[in-house]
């Protein structure tokens, strides 16, 4: 039997924005097998959080990701606020949502550019990144920073949106909407782009459900699931928007979902700005958080972000656990890459919009005799949701093959 060619993509490779390793076994131009190796970016964020007070943690958490920094920060603070039973003022919730949606705009535009670069369409990259500057400048205007906005504090936000800011935002949103319409047209009409993205990285609906794909990756496989709709946080209960989904199940579908979401985002920002209530920006927060635990969910641009915080009655958390959306999506990548071409490997990886530095964690399995079976875990989660969120999942049937 002839020796197979194994091409290393990573840890250092022009296509990768962060170190990760994919060993592709080739059969001609076709990829036969892919070995995914993560863990080059482990930074000990969770442990660092456990050794610092809550105030410092909000800064650390903001630096989990360079793109969705606001998502992580909001998600973490929501959990802490739930434990401390803080009632965040409505205006703060609105501002959090507005900044979160702007973050979605810049993340999706960034993704569109990266995806275009992966398929050698550098013109689209230059166009999208030029337009992304509009929203980056806007964020700098509102918060003082282009990334890591630091607008959240425990119990509210620290930056207000004034009337002049509102006018600026509306103007920028109009400009961006105009540009996004053009990108939708490009995605629907540009032949080489369609050829390169269609039937690539196929993930069927059933596979997506089984592997727990979240965010645009899941929605492109017609999973109509969006935390903003299903478990509304911040101000999302008060706005009207559609959950964009697509049934292409491939990279092309993921691109369509993202540009579609951009259009929804503009409408969300407009609605939020119109209704922006006049309340104080924050409530005073205690330094010491009472004992308790909370799980907070947040629809980050890449998908559902989960933060679990356990407090022990001191000024430091006992345990902080992050589940970044990439972790939920990365399992699906190996299924997507089956029987693909080498040329498609990088675009398929890029299509889940991976953020490996958000994802890398160290797991140590310790068996202390308190193992739970799957059934027990499920029962516990059903009870938890019944008690804390008032949702009854008893009737939901699970099909596990």
């Amino acid at each position: 039997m002839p020796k197979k060619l194994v091409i290393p993509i990573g840890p250092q490779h022009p296509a990768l924005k962060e170190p990760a390793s994919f060993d592709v076994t080739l059969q001609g131009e076709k990829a036969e097998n892919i070995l995914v190796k993560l863990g080059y970016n482990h930074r000990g964020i969770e442990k660092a959080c456990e050794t610092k007070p809550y105030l410092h943690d909000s800064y650390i958490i903001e630096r989990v990701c360079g793109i969705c920094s606001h998502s992580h920060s909001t998600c973490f603070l929501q959990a802490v606020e739930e434990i401390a039973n803080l009632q965040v003022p409505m205006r703060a919730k609105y501002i959090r949502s507005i900044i979160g949606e702007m973050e979605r705009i810049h993340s999706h535009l960034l993704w569109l550019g990266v995806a275009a670069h992966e398929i050698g369409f550098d013109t689209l990259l230059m166009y999208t990144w030029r337009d992304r500057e509009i929203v980056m400048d806007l964020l700098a205007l509102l918060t003082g920073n282009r990334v890591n906005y630091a607008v959240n504090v425990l119990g509210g936000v620290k930056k207000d949106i004034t009337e002049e800011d509102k006018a600026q935002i509306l103007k920028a949103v109009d400009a961006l909407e105009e540009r996004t319409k053009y990108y939708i047209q490009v995605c629907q009409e540009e032949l080489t782009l369609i050829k390169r993205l269609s039937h690539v990285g196929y993930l069927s609906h059933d596979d997506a459900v089984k592997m727990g794909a979240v965010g645009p990756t899941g929605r492109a496989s017609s999973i109509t699931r969006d935390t903003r709709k299903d478990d509304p946080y911040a101000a999302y209960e008060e706005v009207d928007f559609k959950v964009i989904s697509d049934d292409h199940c491939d990279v092309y579908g993921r691109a369509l979902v993202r540009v579609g979401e951009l259009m929804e985002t503009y409408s969300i920002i407009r609605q939020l700005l119109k209704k922006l209530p006049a309340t104080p920006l924050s409530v005073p927060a205690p330094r010491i958080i009472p004992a308790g635990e909370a799980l907070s969910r947040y629809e980050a641009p890449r998908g559902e972000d989960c933060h679990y915080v356990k407090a022990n009655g001191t000024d430091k958390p006992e345990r902080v656990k992050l589940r970044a959306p990439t972790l939920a999506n990365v399992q699906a990548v190996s299924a997507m890459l089956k029987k693909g071409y080498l040329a498609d490997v990088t675009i398929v990886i890029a299509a889940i919009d991976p953020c490996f530095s958000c994802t890398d964690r160290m797991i140590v399995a310790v068996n202390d005799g308190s193992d739970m079976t799957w059934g027990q875990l499920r029962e516990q989660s059903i009870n938890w949701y019944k008690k804390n969120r008032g949702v009854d999942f008893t009737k939901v049937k699970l099909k596990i093959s």
Partner: protein
Amino acid sequence: MISALISILIFPGFLFLFILALAAEYVDRKLYARMQTRLGPPWFQPFADFVKLLAKELIIPENADRLIFKVLPLVACAAAATAFLYMPKWNTNSVFSFRGDIVAVIYIMTIPTLTYFLGGWYSRSLYSLLGSMRVLTQLFSYEVPLLMAVLAPAILASSWTFSNVIDFYSANGFLFLVNIIGFGVALVAVQGKLEKVPFDIPEAETEIVAGTFTEYTGPLYAYFKLAMNIQTISVATLLSAVFLPFGYHSGFILGMLIFLLKILFIISLLAVGRTIFARIRMDQMVRFCWQYLTPLALLQILINIILKAMIIK
């Protein structure tokens, strides 16, 4: 002897070609940048890049064949430049013309592509290896339509020689416009020859780093880049001689101006092509070349044969 040396080394030989090649790179990069709403490089950037690369350290992979690894970039440069010498510039005759030089030029222009393949093959690196295999696969796809498209006008002129073809079309006014399909086919095929988007598959950065050139550094890479730029000029000269055969009888100054304008036109078209498309996959490229380009080139040949029968009648 001396005049031959001058025409090889200085004008219209290597020095002239060197300047043209750098200018071609500048025009291509500037247009590409402006169409992407970027600023683009200053006019001396290609030359600065060339000098900078010459000054860089030369690293040869341990497993590579040292001699072949070093010689190949120079062979590529020489072959691309030779092809240029045999083509007509501002008048109907090239420096050294002979009967059937169209066929010879097309074959000489294949040599740089082969050196890219060999360069990647002898680098003994995974990315280079894949890149060189892609170079060959691509060569077999675009070379046939390119050859047929370029030969179609020659068929109508009943000659394989540049000067005869140009004389034929010059005597027949706007007859060269019938070759418009062939011109389109040749432009697309040439995009593959020059390894530019959408056919930059052999050096697809996001897949195989830099393809065949992954292991080439410093001066050797500079020569490969130069060869690529000279090839751009050679290809543009070939297309302008075969498909835009006018302005060859108007003296040196006007003829030169027309020649440069034609080259600029073709390079601009190539730059537009590389701006508006995404890179396609190898299998799509092969299918595209055989399913669409080759039949179109055949159609052009058919048209020309029918036309020729009518003219003779």
